[in-house]
């Protein structure tokens, strides 16, 4: 019988990972479906009993989303308008059943190209806090997610939290998801954006990320730069789509994805350009 560990301290969890590679189980919403109808194979490290890693923390210069915080926790947390996009994603990831079980970090560690959380977390400039017996390191999310189902987590490491820096001024996030039905739908494409505004309502800084248009979600630095110091305007979008590399699959062709993504980007910028957004 393969091992099943359910440690009640982080130290025990890290010791277990240091001893042998193990499959990490949190909410189980990605892990179980990847094994058909059978039970989970292999050595499992169930982290769901680790204490103190559920509540989303507010600090002076950042927020911390620990590894047991679920999408429902995101929906219920008091978070500012910069999290509007992440909150919108939280409401669209699976049904309530999945939102109650699935962790935010699990979405990141599963590293699906169509993960709804990742573009939003890229737009929030999230870093991943990785703990091991060797110490703690912080990786920018873009350096953590390496590709389709690939991350930079070492086998002895546990992704214990996401850190999201507090923006300098008012900020707002948006999430535009395109799917072929209302609930329970894998995105055909998606756009997440967070803009920070100056006192005049111009964009001081923007981060814009696209998911489901390549092996991993990517930011659009050209478009972000083009927005700086300006009012967000939809017609800035077109020249800045080069980082996208969508594929054809059952949901849509690459060509359609590109076209729809450009439209979602325009809508995201429109939303960030409204007076309400700038007053965030």
């Amino acid at each position, binding site marked *: *019988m393969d091992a*099943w560990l*359910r440690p009640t301290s982080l130290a025990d969890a890290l010791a277990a990972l240091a001893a042998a590679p193990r499959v990490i*189980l949190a*909410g*189980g*919403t990605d892990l*179980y*479906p990847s094994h*058909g*109808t*059978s*039970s*989970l194979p292999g050595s*499992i490290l*169930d982290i*769901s009993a680790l204490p103190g890693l559920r509540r989303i923390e507010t600090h002076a210069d950042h927020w911390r989303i620990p590894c047991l915080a679920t999408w*429902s926790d995101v929906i219920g947390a008091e978070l500012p308008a910069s999290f509007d996009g992440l909150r919108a994603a939280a*409401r669209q990831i*699976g*049904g*309530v*059943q*999945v939102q*109650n*079980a699935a962790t935010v970090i699990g979405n990141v560690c599963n590293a699906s190209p169509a993960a709804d959380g990742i573009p939003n977390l890229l737009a929030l400039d999230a870093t991943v806090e990785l703990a091991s017996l060797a110490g703690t390191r912080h990786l920018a999310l873009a350096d953590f997610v390496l590709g389709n189902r690939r991350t930079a987590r070492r086998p002895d490491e546990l992704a214990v939290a996401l850190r999201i820096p507090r923006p300098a001024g008012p900020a707002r996030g948006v999430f535009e998801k*395109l799917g*072929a*039905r*209302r*609930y*329970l*739908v*894998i995105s*055909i494409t998606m756009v997440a954006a967070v803009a920070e505004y100056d006192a005049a309502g111009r964009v001081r800084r923007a981060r814009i990320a696209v998911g489901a248009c390549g092996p991993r979600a990517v930011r659009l630095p050209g478009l972000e730069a083009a927005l700086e110091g300006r009012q967000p305007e939809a017609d800035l979008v077109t020249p800045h789509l080069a980082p996208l590399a969508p594929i054809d699959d*059952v*949901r*849509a*062709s690459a060509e*359609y994805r590109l*076209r*729809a993504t450009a*439209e*979602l980007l325009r809508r995201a910028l429109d939303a960030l350009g409204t007076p309400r957004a700038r007053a965030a």
Partner: protein
Amino acid sequence: MTAIGFVLNGREVVATAPPRRRLAAVLRDEFGLTGTKIGCDAGDCGACTVLLDGAPVCACLTALGQVEGRAVATVEGLAASALAPLQRAFLRHGAAQCGICTPGMLMAAMALLARTPQPDEAAIADALGGVLCRCTGYRAIIAAVADAAATLPEEPPSGAAVGARVARRDGVEKVTGRERFGADALPAGPFLTLRAIRSPYPHARFTIGDLAPLFAAHPALVRVLTAADVPGSLCYGIYATGKDQPVLAEGQVRHRGEPVCALVGPAEALAAIAEAEVPITWDILPPVGFDDATATQPLHAHAPENILCRGRVRAGDPDAAPPAGAVRAGIAIETSFVEHAYIEPEAGYARRVGDRIEIVACTQTPYMDRDAIAGILGITPEQVRIVPTAVGGGFGGKLDLSVQPLIAVAAWLTGRPVRMVYSRSESMASTTKRHPARIRAEAVAGADGRLFSVRFHGDFNTGAYASWGPTVANRVPVHAAGPYAVPNVLCTSAAIHTTDPPAGAFRGFGVPQAAIAHEALMDALADRLGLDALEFRLRNALRPGSRTPTGQVLGADAALGACLEALRPRWRAWRDEAAAFNAARHRPVLRGVGIGCMWYGIGNTSLSNPSAMAIGLARTGRIVLFSGAVDIGQGSNTVLAQIAADALGAPLGQIDLVTGDTDRTRDAGKTSASRQTFVSGNAALRAALALRAEILRRANAGPAARIAFLPGALQVSDGGRTSTLALESLPADAEGMVLRGEGYFDPPTTPLDQDGQGIPYASFAFAAQIAEVAVDTALGTVTVRRIAAAHEVGRAINPTLVEGQIHGGIAQGLGLALMEEYVPGRTENLHDYLIPTIGDVPPIEVMLIEEADALGPFGAKGVGEPALVATAPAILNAIAAATGARITRVPATPERVLAAILAARDEGRA
């Protein structure tokens, strides 16, 4: 094994099972709480929703180890003594049809109501968005959750059951989780499990190697079945001429998912066997696709050019020159495989009892199963007993055999009970689908606005095996000109074999695909004539006295006109509102309203399809309806009881049901072709009338007498005279009945000649639906905003059930139109294959037109398939009305809609 303690429905319990085991499996297997259903094992359907510390989660994604010390609530905990208010509301509103999603819906809704006692529709949809339902169209569920203070409907008095909105007879079982579906029924005592090994290739030859190493590595493995083990006929099929589908493939597979061998043993032993351990050598052959099938080597000797069969209806002179001023429209339509996606995967068990075999499984057609299994085992039909479980959705997909042949052979040969439960992916890969169609059609109308001719040809991809392909090929040409009077018609069809999954029966048998074509033509002709699309249809509607393309003259119940007239006010108002919206320039969103009409023949096409029913009076004074009609959620258990009650003159509550068991009931035929209300309803009516006549004869009373059913006695009152019939002294038969009535009905039809002339159906249903859509013209997404549906149903025996059928059919029609596309090997799950969720089905207004059918029981017709047919045409016509873009390939995915919009812009149509 670890002992894991938690609180289950308020009681402390300990589970002794591996902590990694899925909670859903533990609840069902360790605690016997089978109210928690497993629909997908992937979090895609929500049927297994339970509350964990009050919050809904999917029990299939929850590790047993994670519930230690926590509180789990299942559906069984809702009604400790009496039904919870929400359960009553589900019964009142008809929110449970087949009932397989009901526990998940109830648990998700309970969590919502605990937080928000009076939720609005948006909150309900958000709370229930994670649970899929394939039967109800969700609207009744929304109504029930919004009406949690509901009371149960009152039982009607004697003689008033027909037309009453009584709660379904089997409803309490469905809302309490007590209903036993295919995977819930277990043999008494130990049993073996069967696991099929299936082809990963659409077309291949194969050999099975030496099995000795497999048995050596897995000593608990009992048996590996191959084609050579089938004792009787290897192949089965629906039609005598189409028995081409092997129980286990014999050297060649013709579709992905075809079973090649079957492992039989204890479940744990089977789970430990890796697929690669089964020694199969594959020689991959080129697949045979829909594009080139007729030019490819035939897959079956009986189908040269891979054409299984053709259908044809010819009337008048289809080549006649059109009159001066006539207008013409043409269309080419392509549709996709559509998966039934019932939330209950196929399941059941078989056991050998002496020289008989018993099969307890979900099915729509117990007697066809009985005869087919007899052939496969090489025994007589009397040696086969089929005991249908509750069916968690069928829609035609459970008309074909699934688990039954394999478990029958295994139980027969091993002598031990054998059980099989399909996984979701196995169900989707191996079972039948709706036929993909490629249709070309043309219609001509005169300057007077009257249809002159219709020509139609549809090729239907019937997949690897015949299944119900001939039914589609025969039914489509009869209906393909639409519900209109057309003097000159040539409608043809062909069913074509490919190495795709077998296409079989699916709600409408090809007519929904054909309706997309004829309704596009009607819009185009109306447009060319400058006529309103509804008024043009009304002018051409089949009406009493009309002659159909097969030469049948319709009776007084041909009431499409009444449907259209009922819709007219909505049609005008909605179009005005859409026009005003568009004029206000809410770009990129445009709205449009579309209309679709349909007709549908009830029962088999020109084939005998009788039903026999028996009804008995027990010594207790209770009445027992012995019904072989399988209720797959549509409500036949309830409707047949309502009919029998009024025919007999008994209170509905006096009637008990014995259903489905082939040892105890007569053959009521299959639950298919919208026939149970019409055909079995007539049989139940006649049985009840026969029993009444017998009672009245014994009481020497006249036909108007009233019967009071008392414990152990009947009181018959005729005029001023009352006589009492004591039942205790009467001899009882083997079923405990002291009096019986038998009823039989076979709808009168005639064969179709080579031009398709004849009387294919004894009754036709008619309907028209309108849909309003909003199209995002920059993304191609379509939102259906509202639907109005006018259905001519003869007589609504139970309006709640009729509306439920219409809602559910509309949801499936919406799916067909907008999102459902099965791609073999790529969409074998419920997250890549999309069916509508609670947020996709708009408010539906149902208008029931009751124009009594001359033959129907109390005037009733069928409604199951008619519910679906008009929806996709209405939605597609609405998209065209909004955007000018005609969708010719369904589903109308965002990509296809956007492409059509861009093409229309290029052509200056929009």
